[in-house]
C-alpha cells in the first residue's frame, strides 16, 4: 500500500518540494484492500513466528477471514448512498464497477482458497528451492510428509496477489496501476513454480510467466511514460481532459496508448499476447491456475475497462477498430487452437483465451449495457472456471493429476457424478442455455449488437460453435468411451468438493435465475467508472 501512496503523492505533487505534503487518505474507502494486505503481512509474520505444525491452522483461517472481511466491507461500501468517489487524492477510484469487480475477486479468491487449502492432495512442493529430481528434493518431501507439514507460504503470497488484484482495477492513475500490476503479478510468478508434481514443468511455467510478464510490464511502463509526455500527468482523468482539448502530441498519445494496451491485453491473454497462458496454466499448481483463470482475469478486465472507459472514452473511434481486430483474433485463435489440445489444463487455457475474446465484444460496446454484461460474464465465467479446475484436481493417478485427455476415458462410468459435473461446466463454457455461460454470452452479445457490432457477434457465435467442438470432445471421451483398466481415481477432499459445489450452484443459478445478479451488475454500472 505504501508504494501506491508514494505514487499518489507523486502524482499530486509533481513539484517535488523538500517536504512531501501528507496525502489525504480515506482509510474507510480503501479498507477492503487494506484488510487483504494486512492479512498478507500478518501471514508473513505467522510464517516467521508460528511453529511449523500449527502454521497451516493459523494461515488458512487468517486468509479466509481477510477475504471475508474485505468482501463484507466492499458490500458495505457498495450499499452506501453514494459509493462513487476517488479516494487517496484521486489515485484510487471507488465506484460501482470497481466495487463489483472487487467483490467478485474476493469471492472467487475465497473459492480458490478452498482448493489451495486442500490437504488431502498436496498441491505444493515442500521445498521449492530444491532442484527437481535431486536427493535434496526427495529428502525435503519425505521430511515434510513424515512430519505432516504443509507448505504454508502460499497463503500470504496468495493474499498479496489478491490485494494487487483489488487495486489493479481501482487504480485511477497509471503509476498506481503499474504498482498494483506488479503486486499482483510477482507473487503469482512465484506461486506458479510451486507445483509438487512435474516440478520441471512448473518451474518452466514460472520462468516463462515471469519473463513474459516482465516484458509486458515494461510495455505498460513505457506506454505510461509516453502518455505522461502527452498529458503531463499519469492521471486517467487528466489524460481524458487533454484528449478533449485536442492538444499535445498525437504521436505520443497513440504510441503510449498502444504500448499501454499491450501490457493490459497481455494480462487478459488476448491474442497475440496469449502465448503464456497455456504453458502457465498447465505448469502451475492447479489451485493457482484456478486463481489466475478467475481472479486475475477479472482484475485485468476491470483495469482494461477503467483505462479505456475513463482515460480514452473520447478516443473510442480510434481504438475500437483495433480492439475489434484483437477481439476477433482472440475468439477465433483461442477456439481453433484449442481443438488440437490433449491436455485438459491447456485446453481450458485456450478456452480462457476464447472467453477473453467474448468478453472483449462486450467491453467494446462502451455502453452501460456493455459494462454490465461484461461484469456479469466475469462472475459467471469465474465461478465456472474455478469449478472446472477444481474437478481437474480431483482426477488423479500415481503421478498426480491425470490431466491428459486420454486418461479421462470412461470417467462417466467410473464416477458419473464427477464426470457429470465436469460435463456441465463444459456445457456452460460452450454457452448452452440454462447455464450461466449462455446468460453471460447473451448479455455481451446483446450489448455488442446494440453497439452496432453485429459482425463481431457473428464471429463470436461461429467461434462458439468451434469451441463447442472441443468441449464436446471431452464429453465424448468421458461418457462415450470405455474406461481404461488402470484409469485414474477420483479423490474428493472436502474443501475441493465444496469449491466444486459452489461452482455448480453459481453456474445453475446464474443460468436459470440470473435476474438478481444482472440487477446487481446493472446497478453497479449505472454510473461508469469514477474519474
Amino acid at each position, binding site marked *: 500500500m505504501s508504494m501506491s501512496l508514494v505514487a499518489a503523492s507523486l502524482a499530486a505533487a509533481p513539484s517535488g518540494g523538500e517536504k512531501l505534503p501528507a496525502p489525504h487518505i480515506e482509510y474507510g474507502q480503501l479498507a477492503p484492500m487494506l484488510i487483504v494486505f494486512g492479512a498478507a503481512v500478518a501471514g508473513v509474520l505467522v510464517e516467521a513466528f508460528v511453529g511449523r505444525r500449527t502454521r497451516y491452522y493459523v494461515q488458512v483461517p487468517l486468509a479466509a477471514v481477510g477475504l471475508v472481511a474485505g468482501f463484507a466491507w466492499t458490500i458495505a461500501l457498495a450499499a452506501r448512498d453514494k459509493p462513487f468517489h476517488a479516494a487517496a487524492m484521486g489515485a484510487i477510484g471507488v465506484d460501482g464497477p470497481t466495487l463489483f469487480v472487487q467483490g467478485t475477486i474476493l469471492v472467487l479468491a475465497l473459492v480458490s482458497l478452498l482448493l489451495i487449502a486442500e490437504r488431502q492432495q498436496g498441491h505444493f512442493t515442500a521445498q521449492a528451492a530444491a532442484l527437481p529430481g535431486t536427493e535434496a528434493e526427495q529428502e525435503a518431501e519425505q521430511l515434510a510428509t513424515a512430519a505432516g507439514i504443509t507448505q504454508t507460504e502460499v497463503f500470504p503470497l496468495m493474499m498479496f496477489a489478491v490485494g494487487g488484484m483489488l487495486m489493479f482495477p481501482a487504480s485511477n492513475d497509471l503509476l498506481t496501476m503499474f504498482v498494483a500490476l506488479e503486486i499482483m503479478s510477482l507473487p503469482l510468478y512465484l506461486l506458479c513454480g510451486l507445483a509438487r508434481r512435474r516440478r520441471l514443468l512448473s518451474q518452466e511455467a514460472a520462468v516463462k510467466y515471469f519473463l513474459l510478464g516482465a516484458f509486458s510490464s515494461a510495455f505498460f511502463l513505457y506506454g505510461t511514460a509516453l502518455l505522461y509526455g502527452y498529458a503531463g500527468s499519469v492521471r486517467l482523468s487528466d489524460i481524458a481532459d487533454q484528449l478533449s482539448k485536442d492538444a499535445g502530441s498525437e504521436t505520443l498519445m497513440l504510441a503510449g496508448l498502444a504500448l499501454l494496451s499491450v501490457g493490459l491485453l497481455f494480462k487478459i491473454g488476448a491474442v497475440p499476447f496469449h502465448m503464456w497462458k497455456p504453458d502457465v496454466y498447465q505448469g502451475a499448481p492447479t489451485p493457482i491456475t484456478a486463481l489466475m483463470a478467475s481472479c486475475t482475469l477479472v482484475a485485468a478486465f476491470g483495469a482494461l475497462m477503467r483505462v479505456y472507459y475513463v482515460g480514452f472514452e473520447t478516443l473510442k473511434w480510434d481504438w475500437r477498430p483495433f480492439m475489434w481486430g484483437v477481439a476477433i483474433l482472440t475468439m477465433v485463435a483461442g477456439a481453433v487452437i484449442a481443438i488440437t489440445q490433449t491436455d485438459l489444463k491447456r485446453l481450458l487455457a485456450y478456452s480462457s483465451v476464447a472467453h477473453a475474446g467474448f468478453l472483449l465484444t462486450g467491453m467494446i460496446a462502451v455502453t452501460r449495457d456493455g459494462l*454490465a454484461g461484461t461484469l456479469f460474464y466475469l462472475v459467471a465465467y469465474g465461478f465456472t472456471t474455478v469449478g472446472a479446475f477444481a474437478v481437474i484436481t480431483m482426477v488423479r493417478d500415481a503421478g498426480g493429476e491425470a490431466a491428459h485427455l486420454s486418461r479421462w476415458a470412461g470417467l*462417466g462410468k467410473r464416477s*458419473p457424478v464427477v464426470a457429470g459435473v465436469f460435463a456441465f461446466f463444459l*456445457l456452460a463454457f*460452450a454457452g*448452452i*442455455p*440454462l447455464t450461466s455461460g*449462455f*446468460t453471460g454470452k*447473451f*448479455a455481451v*452479445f*446483446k450489448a455488442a*449488437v*446494440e453497439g452496432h457490432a*453485429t459482425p463481431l*457477434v*457473428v464471429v463470436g*457465435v*461461429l467461434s*462458439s*460453435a468451434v469451441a*463447442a*467442438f472441443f468441449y*464436446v*470432445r471431452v*464429453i*465424448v471421451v468421458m*461418457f*462415450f*468411451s*470405455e474406461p481404461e483398466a488402470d484409469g485414474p481415481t477420483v479423490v474428493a477432499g472436502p474443501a475441493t468438493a465444496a469449491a466444486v459445489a459452489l461452482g455448480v450452484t453459481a453456474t445453475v443459478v446464474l443460468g436459470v435465475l*440470473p*435476474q438478481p445478479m*444482472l*440487477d446487481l451488475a*446493472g446497478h453497479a454500472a449505472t454510473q461508469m467508472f469514477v474519474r
Partner: protein
Amino acid sequence: MTDFPWLTVLIALPAVGALLVGVLPRENEALAKQAALAISVVEAVLAIVMTTAFKVGGDRFQFTEKYWWIKSFGVHWAVGVDGVALVLVLLSVILVPLVVIASWDEAGRSGGTDTPPKRSVKTYFALLLALEAMMVGVFAATDVFLFYVFFEAMLIPVYFLIGSYGGPQRSYAAVKFLLYSLLGGLLMLVAVVWLYPLSQDKLGHGTFMFDELRTMHVDGMTAKWLFLGFFVAFAIKAPMVPVHTWLPDAAAQSPAGALVLVVGVLDKVGTYGMLRFCLELFPGAAKWATPVVLALAVISIVYGAVLAIGQVDLKRLVAYTSVSHFGFIVLGIFAMTTQGQSGATLYMVNHGFSTGALFLLVGFMIARRRSARIDAFGGVQKVAPVLAGTFLVAGLSGLSLPGLSTFVSELMVLIGTFSRHRVPAVLAASGIVLAAIYILWTYQRTMGGPARDEVKGMPDLTVREKLAVAPIIAIIVAMGLFPQPVLKAINPSVQQGLARVDVRDPAPKINGNVAENGARP
C-alpha cells in the same frame, strides 16, 4: 379451469420427473421404468384434458401465461398454444409413453450388432423425460428467447441418448448431430439477439414476445439477414438438403426409442419454426426466399426418396424417407396457401406417428436379429405376421395410401402448392411414386418371400410391443379417415399466420380464391 397453468405444469412435470428418475437408486431398474411410464402417462392424460378445454375459433393463443423471467433482457416466461402448437404438443406427449414402453428392455443395451456393455437404465428414462419437458416447452413458448432456450437445451438430452445408448459409431453420430444443431442454433442466436434492439427501435420497447414482434415491420437487408438466421437453424433441424447429412448418421446409431422422438418430434421443431417464426416475423423476406426454399424442398423430396431406395440399413432408409417427407412439409409451408400450410401442419403430426411407428418396428426387428441390414431379414411375415402387418400399415401410411393419415396431408400440400407454384408441385408429386418404391420394395425384401433360416426362430411382437405400436396404428387410421377435428384446430392459426404474410405484400390474384376456398377441403 382456464386459470390453471396447464402448460407450465406440462413442462414442469416431466422436468421434475426426470430429476426424480435420475436420483433413483441405480440398481432398481424396474422402479425407474415404472416411474417414467407413470409420469409420461399422467403427462399425456393432462395434455388431453387440456385439449378438451381448447376453444376452436377462440383466441389464437390459449392457456397463455406470462411472467417476467429475465427482466434485464426483456425476457418472459411466456407460454401459450395455438392450434398448430397444440397438435404438436399432443404428438409429443402421446409418443413419449409409447417410447417408454417400447424401450422397456432395450434401454439397458446399446443398439447395434456388437455385444454391448451394460448402460444405466434410469439415466435413459430420465433423459427421455427431460427431452419431453423441452419438447413441450419449445412448442408452447410464445417468447422467442424462451423458444431459443428450449431449442438449444433440447440438444443435450438427445446428445447423451445417442452418444451413450447408440450403436458402434454412436459418438461420431452424436457429435455430428450436436455440432450441426449447435451451429444452426448459434446463427439463430445472432438473429434472436438482434430482435431486441430492433424491437426497441420499431416498437418503442425491447421485447421478445412473439405477438408483439409479429406486429413489427422489418424490411430490407435486416429482415433478410434475420430470416436467414432463423431459417438456417430450422433447415438444419428439419433437416433439408443440403444440411441433412447428420440425420442418417444419427438415425443409424441412435437407439430406436430416442430416434422416434428425434425424427418424430424434434425435427418438427424445424418446420414448426419456419411456419411460426420465419414466415410471421419476416413475411417480406420469406417471400423473397420462397423460390430458393421451394427448390430446396423439391430437391429434398426427390433426393431423399432416391437415396432411401438405395439404402441397405433400415434405420438409414427410414431417415432418408423423412428427409423426403420434410421436403413436403417445407413445400406446403412456403406455398403460402392455407391449404398448403394446414396440410403441412397435419403432415407434421402424421409423419410423427407413421415414422414413429416405423422406427419402433425397425427397433423391434433389430432387437431380434441384432442387425439393421435389410438383407438380414426375409420372409418375416411368415414367422411374425403381426410385426409384418403393422410394418405394412405404417409403411403404407408413409407412402400416402388413401385412408391412412399421411394421404390427406400430402394431398393438401400438393393441391395447396399447385394452386400457386405448379412446377414444384408437379415435381414433388414424383416423390409419391418413389415412396411407393422404397416402402414396398423394402417390405418385399424384409417381410416377403420364403422365411430365411436365421429369421425362422424370430418371435412375433410381444404384448408389450403391441401395446407400444397399437395406439399409433389406431391414430394413423383414425387420422386418415377423420382428419377434420385436427384440421379445425389448425386452420384458424394458419389463416392468421397467413394473413400476416399477405398483409403487406398482396400475393398474386389466384391466392385470394385459394385462401378462401382452401380452408375447407
